[in-house]
């Protein structure tokens, strides 16, 4: 890989990761750098090992071989430097929005009044002000994922791992989420690792796109869209570079889709 001058140093590096589930070889010898402060997408068809890679970075799964470093530290398990946003939200149905959002802080031993202050701030930030005492079943899918996002933001981890966070919400909500995500990347000064199977979504939100090909999964190509990022959220989808990259990615993926 060519390292250009304008790419920041890596917040996360994965080196020669392999992962086997019994006979299934999910990942083989996968190496990838995740630049600090940027959003990297893992893009690929279903079953190509995106979730597996994300969970290995999170420390939720052990790789069969290879290693993950976060800020130069070897990953041996989950840590305070990483927070996870789940595809199925993974909210606690018996807990209010407030308790769900403050769950990570509770596990870190933050006192109740302090963690509720912090949680209240992030609940407002994701646009759920007024729903602090609601329960997950009273919320729409989009609102539930906002709770999941607030929970991940409230622990103030440097690396945010997001596993297809918008795949279970409707199209309009998804577009709003994508715009909000661009704002977060700009303002939060965090490193985002974002799994998606949507080409358009990946090109829209990413500073760097790693295209994974199916099993055993490896990085096929790294694309760094750069030209349209500052043109405003409304213009990205019309930008020629955006459209070209979408086409280019489709051209390289289509051979792998039956």
């Amino acid at each position, binding site marked *: 890989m060519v390292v250009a001058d304008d790419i920041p140093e890596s917040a996360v590096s994965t080196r020669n990761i392999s992962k086997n589930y019994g006979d299934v070889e999910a990942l083989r010898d996968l190496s990838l750098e995740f630049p600090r402060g940027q959003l990297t997408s893992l893009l690929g068809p279903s079953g190509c090992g995106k979730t597996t890679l994300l*969970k290995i970075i*999170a420390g*939720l799964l052990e790789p069969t071989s290879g290693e993950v470093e976060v800020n130069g530290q070897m990953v041996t398990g*989950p*840590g*305070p430097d*990483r*927070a*996870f946003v*789940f595809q*199925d939200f*993974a909210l*606690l*149905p*018996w*807990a*209010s929005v407030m308790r769900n959002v403050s*769950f*990570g802080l*509770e*596990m*870190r031993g933050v006192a109740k009044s302090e963690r509720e202050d912090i949680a209240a701030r992030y609940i407002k930030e994701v646009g759920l002000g007024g729903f602090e005492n609601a*329960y*997950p*079943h*009273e919320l729409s899918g989009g609102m539930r994922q906002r709770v999941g996002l607030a*929970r991940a933001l409230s*622990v103030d981890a440097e690396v945010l791992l997001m596993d297809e966070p918008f795949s279970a919400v409707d199209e309009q909500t998804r577009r709003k989420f994508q715009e909000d995500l661009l704002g977060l990347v700009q303002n939060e000064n965090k490193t985002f690792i974002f799994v998606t199977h949507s080409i358009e979504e990946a090109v829209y939100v990413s500073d760097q796109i790693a295209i994974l090909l199916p099993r055993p999964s490896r990085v096929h190509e790294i694309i760094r869209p750069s030209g349209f990022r500052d043109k405003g959220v409304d213009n990205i989808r019309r930008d020629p570079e955006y459209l070209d990259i979408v086409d280019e990615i489709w051209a390289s993926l289509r051979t792998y889709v039956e």
Partner: protein
Amino acid sequence: MASSLWKSSMMKRANLLKILSALILFGAWEIAGRIPVSLAFPTFLESMSALFAMAFDGTLWAAYGETLQPLVVGVAISAVLGIAIGLWVGLSDFFDWLFSPIFIVMQAAPLAALIPLLVLAYGIGLTSKVLVVCIMAMPVIVLNTAGAVRNTPESMKEMGKAFLASDLSVILKIVIPAASPVIFAGLRLGISAGFIGAILAELKITPTGVGDIITYSRSIADYPSMYAAIFSIILLAVLFLNLLEKTEAVLFKGNQRGYVSD
């Protein structure tokens, strides 16, 4: 706010329905007693007056003083031990292998056939009766708890780990609350079975307490008293199960998903 108003009106309606169905049941009983369906079947009002008579002369309270001993002790042991063993069985394959067969056999065993063995081993005292209550109540509590624990959504446990929960926190803050609806369902079934066990013990081991009222009043053909005793134990069971339901509703508010569309 509108939704909470609506909820409370739904609650009132649910209570109204309960009262209505009780009235219909009692009405049917009264009519059946007046036809009469059988000479040994008293009317609702006769049974109620027998109940009040027993309440006033103290026989009823004395009887419950005896019946409640094995019932309360047995149910308490079954609940505490049953949930604890169920948690273990659900969390560890080894305990599953060790304990599950015992409780499956216990659940399937014909209790009436075991009672002579229990009497042989533990005599006719409180111990045997407590054991009968436990044999009735515990298996369903253990098996429900274990099943619920085993079925905790993997993604919730994973979420706990990702947010740095310790193993103990995962069990206390995720596994147990997630399993609680099924644990409570097991408790309800187990406690109902415990009531049956307590009466069965009094009918099959030695007639004491409420079982004695039933046996004795049948032997002298005082059917209103017999039905009054049966009615009182059912009433107690229903009241107790309602109390349990309320406790669950207070403890795990968000788990009640009735009336709200997903």
